[in-house]
C-alpha cells in the first residue's frame, strides 16, 4: 500500500490538487505526512493532526466553508482511487479500504479543527466588540460621557457600569452623561440596567444624566410603565452637557456658532 502511494506520488498529488482548490505544496506536505503515518502502521498521528489543524485554521480564517475544508482531505481518496482501479488487484483494493477509512478519520478531524478555529475567532471578535463598544470619554473637567452603541445586555451593562465607575474614581468627575442615541431599543431589562448604573454612580457621589432618548423610546418607556424617578433625562447630548455645565457652575456665553467663551466659576 505504502509502496503504491510512494510510486505514484507525483501523479496522485497532481490529480488531488486539480480536484480540490488548494496549493500543491501544501497538499504534497500533507501527502508525505499521510504516507509516513501509513508506513509506520498508523500509530502516531500527532504530526499529521498538527498539520491538519493548521490547514483548517488557516482556511477558517480566510473564510472557506467547512464542506470545502473537509473536501480538500476527502479529495485524496478520489485521486488515489484512479491508481487503484488501474491496478485492479484484490490485495490493493483491500488496502484501499483501510486507506479510505484513515482518510475519513482525517477528514472528520479536519472538520472538528475547523469548527474549533471558527469558534475561537467568534469568541475573540465578541471580546473585541465588547472592548470597542464601551468607551468613557471626558467631555469637560469633571464631566464624563458614555456613548452607548448597539444592543445592551447584562454582560455589556456590567462592563459599562464598571468602566464608568472606575473612570469616576480616576478623574474625580462629579457628572456623567449616558448617551443612548445608538441603542436601538429599550425594554424593561435595558432600563433596569441603566437605572442600576445611575444608582451606583450616585452611591459614589456622582450625578448621572441620560441623554439621546428618541421619541419612540420615550413612548416605549412610558408604555412599559418604567419609572425613571428623579433621574434627569435629556433628548440630546448637547442638552445633557448644558445641564451638567449648569450644575457644575460653568457658564457658557456668546453665540455658539461664532465663538464660545467658557469660564469656570470658583466655588
Amino acid at each position: 500500500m505504502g509502496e503504491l502511494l510512494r510510486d505514484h506520488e507525483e501523479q496522485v498529488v497532481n490529480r488531488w490538487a486539480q480536484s480540490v482548490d488548494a496549493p500543491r505544496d501544501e497538499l504534497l506536505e500533507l501527502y508525505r505526512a499521510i504516507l509516513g503515518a501509513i508506513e509506520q502502521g498508523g500509530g502516531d498521528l500527532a504530526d499529521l493532526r498538527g498539520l491538519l489543524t493548521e490547514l483548517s485554521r488557516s482556511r477558517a480564517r480566510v473564510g472557506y466553508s467547512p464542506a470545502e475544508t473537509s473536501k480538500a482531505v476527502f479529495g485524496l481518496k478520489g485521486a488515489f482511487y484512479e491508481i487503484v482501479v488501474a491496478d485492479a488487484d484484490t490485495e490493493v483494493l483491500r488496502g484501499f479500504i483501510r486507506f479510505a477509512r484513515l482518510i475519513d478519520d482525517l477528514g472528520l478531524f479536519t472538520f472538528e479543527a475547523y469548527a474549533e478555529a471558527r469558534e475561537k475567532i467568534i469568541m475573540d471578535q465578541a471580546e473585541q466588540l465588547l472592548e470597542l463598544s464601551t468607551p468613557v470619554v471626558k467631555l469637560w473637567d469633571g464631566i464624563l460621557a458614555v456613548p452607548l452603541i448597539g444592543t445592551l445586555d447584562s454582560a455589556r451593562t456590567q462592563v459599562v457600569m464598571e468602566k464608568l465607575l472606575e473612570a469616576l474614581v480616576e478623574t474625580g468627575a462629579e457628572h456623567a452623561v449616558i448617551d443612548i442615541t445608538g441603542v436601538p431599543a429599550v425594554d424593561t431589562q435595558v432600563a433596569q440596567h441603566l437605572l442600576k448604573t445611575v444608582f451606583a454612580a450616585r452611591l459614589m457621589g456622582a450625578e448621572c444624566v441620560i441623554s439621546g432618548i428618541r421619541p419612540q423610546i420615550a413612548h416605549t418607556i412610558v408604555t412599559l410603565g418604567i419609572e425613571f424617578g428623579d433621574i434627569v433625562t435629556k433628548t440630546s447630548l448637547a442638552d445633557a452637557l448644558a445641564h451638567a455645565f449648569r450644575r457644575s457652575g460653568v457658564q457658557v456665553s456668546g453665540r455658539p456658532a461664532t465663538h464660545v467663551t467658557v469660564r469656570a466659576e470658583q466655588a
Partner: protein
Amino acid sequence: MDRVPILKLGDLLIVSIQVDLDDQSVLVLQEDLAAAVVSRGAKGVIIDISAVEIVDSFTGRMLATIAAMCRMLDAHAVVVGMRPAVAITLVELGLSLGGVRTALDLEKGVALLNHVGGTAR
C-alpha cells in the same frame, strides 16, 4: 474588639472605616456616633469607606441608618469614597440608599457639607 475612631474637625465629625466591619462593631459604631454628635454638637458627619472592599446588606443598611440618625440629631451625613465594586454590590442588593448623600472623596464631602450647611444657616 477595635472601635472605629471618630475624629472632630471644626463642627464636622469624620469616621474613617479602615477594616471590614462585623455586625457587632457596626452596632457599637452607631451608638458611639450618635453620642458623639450630641456631645460635640456636630453639624455634619462624614463616613469615609474608601478602604472598605466587602459589603453585605447589613453594612449597607448601617449607612442608611446612620444617615437617618444624623438627620434626627440635626446633622447632615455624607458617605464618601465608595469603591466601584461596593457601589455595584449595593445596587445589586437593591440598596440604592435613597436618603444618603454621597461624594467621591473626603475633600468633596467636606465641600458638600460646607455648601449644605451654608444654605441652612
